[in-house]
């Protein structure tokens, strides 16, 4: 798999007014094209929401794994 330079990792497993997609959208805005942002999520529905958001915004899902009931996605900025 192509090595991706991570801009940052977001722990979005806790309650937060901005929400996981809000945190992610900001980080993807600041990432450079080609860089990735990792996000840790606490439940499957939220993971699915983030996957829909990634498709809608044209960000590539480079990694999608489950770790001990939590979920980790790495999104790569492609444009």
């Amino acid at each position, binding site marked *: 798999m192509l090595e991706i330079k991570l*801009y*940052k990792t*977001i*722990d*979005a497993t*806790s*309650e*937060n*007014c*901005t*929400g*996981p*997609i*809000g*945190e992610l*959208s*900001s980080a993807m*805005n*600041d990432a450079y094209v080609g860089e990735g942002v990792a996000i840790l999520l606490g439940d499957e529905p939220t993971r699915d*929401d983030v996957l829909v*958001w990634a498709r*809608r915004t044209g960000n590539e899902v480079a990694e999608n794994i489950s770790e001990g009931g939590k979920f980790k996605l790495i999104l790569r900025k492609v444009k």
Partner: protein
Amino acid sequence: MKNVLVAGGGLGGTIVANRIAQKLSNEIDKGEVNVTVLDKDDKHFYQPGFLLVSMGAMEPGETHVPERSVLDRHVKFLSGDKGTMTKIDAANHSISTADGASHHYDQLVLSTGSHLQFDEIPGFTEGADTFFNLEKARDMWKKVQSFTGGKIVVDTAMLPHKCPVAPLEVTLMLDDYFRKKGIREKVQIDYCYPVPGVFGIPNVNRMMTGIFAERGINIHSQFTLASVDAGARKITSKEGESLDYDMLVSVPPHKGAQVIGDSGLGDRRNWIPTDKFTLLVKGHDDIHAMGDTTDIAISKAGSTADYESYTVSHNVAADITGTDGKKTYPGTVFCFIATGMDQATYIKFDYSHPPVPPTPSQIYWWSKLAYNKLYWSIHARTMI
């Protein structure tokens, strides 16, 4: 002599400095410890009040006092050039200020806040009203009073921003204001948000989506503000949607303090990588961060800073005296949410427990107003 420096004299910096001084008052009296707040501004602003100013529910003069007046007598305060931080040198445990001085620290608390970036969106400065600083909140109130009908667009340019519930609040307050004025049918209100839904927490999103539907407020999400055309009175999103407006009320993009970026301590938006439990800056055991300053995925709100101040002040005092164990921050946040000009609800939650907002009522509205009044006498001075 040991030195505790608190970078930033906003709500978070003031409260944490007062709590630290209270815990170390004996050591300070004996000349063993100094606690010093650094800030370029000698005024202390209660920023949550700006929303109420923009809707005529609070007087502008009620939102600020001299910073010295709310600091514990044991706390030193440097402002102007003496308090303007130009560089934080973590390797040498010091902060440089604009007057050329260098301030050594044994423990540092970073509470440098979030800052408005009006120029980040083309046309924003010319075309948007906002209530995120006092001057613009005053201007907005004048426009609200003279608005006789047309399209009002409430837009959040980018997340995260301070006071996350404020876009919901101003939308519902505008709705209620024009209902009470008898001209609501002449006012179209559109709410634009840069992620799906109207808010990031599912319980709150469900409640507010329902209230918006009842009140006839149109939702546009996801709508990520790309530009404002002040001449044509039109905003355009990155998703390609355009909306006309007669009045645009918008939340500008936010960033962490410039000195954080200049000191190499933050990410590209100058938020500081911070442990969500210990509130220590990652890689530094003598630098604490709190409030809007951190990159923690948590609400950038005054209550967040206040709750964090209990953890940070305890741990700073423990490090200075070496006499007690450390505390961790459980992620507690509390915010009132105005749902009109005389009603509100609230959310309280932590890292593990989601909020369950109660049905809006006048009791919570009066509680919100009472808290604003009591902030100066009780909370800023950390009587509780």
